[in-house]
């Protein structure tokens, strides 16, 4: 699936970091602004797949040196752990902790919800699934 267009290849070197960064941003800001783990994961996976098209399978494997299924396991594990930890604290399953804390050297309070870790798990799973399916199928074709 390697498209040997120099334009795409070169522009991809610029697009990729920005897209990945935006994917992370979308995931982190998801609780308050458009975004979230699912969208972040999708953007991330799209960027990786486009990179694979422009630079080839080997380059993509170097960029993401873990097998996608590891990401799926990690993501599911993280989501499950986040859901189950409240049980240990005597709270219902999936109860999210909401609060604020102060970063050092900053007067601005930092708002957080523990559901974010759950969202990170969702993102990992989505990246793992999308990238995994696409790489597996295209390897089958090659």
């Amino acid at each position, binding site marked *: 699936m390697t498209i040997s267009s120099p334009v795409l290849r070169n522009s991809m070197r610029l697009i990729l970091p920005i897209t990945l960064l935006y994917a992370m941003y979308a995931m982190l800001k998801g609780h308050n602004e*458009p975004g979230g*783990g699912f969208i972040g994961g999708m953007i991330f996976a799209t960027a990786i797949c486009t990179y694979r098209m422009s*630079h080839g399978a*080997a380059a993509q494997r170097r960029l993401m040196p873990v097998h996608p299924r590891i990401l799926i396991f990690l993501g*599911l594990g993280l989501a499950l752990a986040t859901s189950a930890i409240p049980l240990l604290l005597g709270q219902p399953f999936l109860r*999210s902790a909401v609060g604020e804390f102060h970063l050092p050297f900053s007067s601005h309070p930092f708002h957080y919800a523990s559901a974010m870790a759950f969202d990170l798990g969702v993102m990992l799973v989505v990246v793992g699934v999308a990238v995994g399916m696409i790489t*597996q*199928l295209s390897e089958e074709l090659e």
Partner: protein
Amino acid sequence: MTTSATVWLLLCVLAPAVLGCVTLGLPRRAITARTLIALLGPVAAFIILAQHLATYGAASIESPAATPEIQWIPLLNMNLSFLADGLGGFFGLLVSGIGILIVLYARGYFGRDEASLYRFYPTLGFFTTAMMGIVLADSMLITVLFWELTSISSFLLIGWDRDDRHAVKLAMQAFFTTGLGGMFLMGGVLMFGFATGGDDGLWRWSDVLAQGAARIDPTNPLIIWSFVLMLFGAATKSAQWPFHYWLPGAMAAPTPVSAYLHSATMVKAGVFLTGRMFPVFAALDLWGAIIIPLGAFTMVLAALIALNQHDLKRIFAYTTVSQLGLLMCMYGLGSLTYHGHANIEWDITQIANHAFYKAPLFIIAGALGHYISRDITQLNGAIRKQPWMVITMLLAGYALAAGPGTISFQAKELFLYAIYHAQESIGSWWMLLMAMAAITAVCNVAIFVRLLTTLMGWPGGMKPAAAHHHDDHAHGHAEHEHGPWAQLIWIPGLVLVSLQYVGGIAPGLWAHWFAPLETNMVGEIPSALHAFMHPTLPLYVSLIAIAGGVVVGMSALMRGAIVDVHDRIYPALYWLSVTGGGRAFRVIQTGRFRNYIVFVLLAFLGAYVASMVLDPAMMNWPLTESPFEFVPGILLGAIICASAILMPIVQSRVVRVIILGSCGFSVVGMYLLYQAPDLALTQLMFEIISVILFVLVLRMLPDLKETDRASGRWWRFSLGTMTGLAIGWLTLVAAQSGEEPRLGEFFARHSYTGTEATAGRGGGGNNIVNVILVDFRGFDTLGEITVLGIAALGVFSLFPRRKPAPTELEFDDALVRGAAL
């Protein structure tokens, strides 16, 4: 009682499994340490329970006192508390006490077989815990939970010999039968809970015992059905006809398992459950009408089959079934009255009686099988080879025959009295029951007489048949061990059977131990002496049975080995489901997506029509505002419609994917127009990835045949049109706002901060969509990502990974490096 009592009893239940697992940490060679640690489990359980009973007393039925609850899953009415009343406490002591002996016996049985002991003790501990859980749990649902755990652990134990396909099949048979019963039990418990008032209903045995009689309406069909379902569970576990086939089949297990599960504990779980239900459900007319005939028939049938067997373990398995029938029948007769009393006396003694002789019989059967043979025709004169084992077996066999001097004799008298007294309620039917009991007793005595004459080598004993048939599927016997550990193969049997004679010779001592546990007793436990001094009809029946048994045992009648016809039930069912399932599979699973989709759409349309009939309001015209107000929306809608119509017309698959993509991107635009950036972003990314995936997959599909497409085209066209219209209509109906506030408004209000409706808790986020995803509906999301992960694993396993050839990789790398330069 304080909460600490609950914690102690929880420890008591868990100790065997935990310590069984601890033995896994020991090196394989450390057999003695392994045995001692495994021994600690049931010992701890026994001591804790005995201490509990000594401190709090076995609560009587009038004031059933469960330990305080520890909340576990209050939403499902499953909380941790324990009820160690007479019945539960007795069974707990029985399970843990015999568990101690079985741990020791297993050491003697397996000898120095390290691999077997390594695997056996954890599994045995798991089973002991499951059994303790059944008998001590207060929450009915937790009883069901542990009930299923015994099915699972007994499956592991019956299929112990994993290389023996026959044994595995028999283990499946037992698991299927008892597991099915467990399902029925769960249904019964749930139905009972809801029939008595849902969340405020009776979900705890202690509440059932205390308030059951007042709160249950015996004519309520729900109550009657819940009783029938629970009884079904009890009948399968306790091997009542026609489900008794699994118990003789379970003899494929190693003998320690048979002695523990299939004589003393697990098969008694059904009797235990019947005993638990007895104080409440005995008021139902159905109680006696079902249980008495079922138990009595099982009792006679199994006794007759037992007489026609050669394998010692099978003989004792069928006598176990027979005795279980008797115990069920005893509870059935208990619903009748005699002079205003319930017609049941010393039921726990009657249950204990069976365990105290049947487990030793199995123990010695295993020991004899180990040293000589388990086939009774091969055992002629065995006393000269293994005197101690044979003496123990004969002592237990005498109890099987219910000879005077054993507690078994008194138990049988109590049972015969119950039949005799039943004539007050059931008229002359009691004579039939008495005859059935007499036939059973004749069979039991005959089996003992055969054992006696054969093992002693006396005339009249069984002789090897001309054609030598070795029926002893022994379990990998290593060479025989010597020394004190080896003697454990028969000593536990002697310990247990001695209790029989304590009860028989010193009934006062027995009463001292058992009277505090007994809940159903009016008079003293009868002594054998008393019975002979004041002869009544039951005594004459016993004497006739003994005489008849001696005659049958000595005669040449019924000396063959027959095959139980009921053994065919499970294989027949298995064959039916496999063959029928295969046929159905070939009809339904055509492997063509088109057919599957037709099924799905037809089901959807059927459900749609049904809901239309139920709620005619759905047929009202759903559009309240004009749809033609917003021009960009109309334009995008036109594109969506056009691409949807083009889809079936275009032939090439790739073009179709592109059209589908254009449809999707128009939907993205639609979302943007109606200010749903989240959905738009998600849809956009989803479209990109799905188009890539489609293009990849399409290249692997074979081409469609033109003839294939032509047939039934109009039919499919109309089905598609109808479904499309139905879904469109549904969408419009769903968008209608009714009287209730919209769900969206609720989420919008609670997205960041909560109100009273959510107990003051909000999601802590401003993005409603995301807060719904990860907080309000987090459980759904967890399920969805799990499904996603499984789907991806499916793709991975469909196309097993091939390692790319190194040359190719290097070439690829070189290409990329060149491009980078």
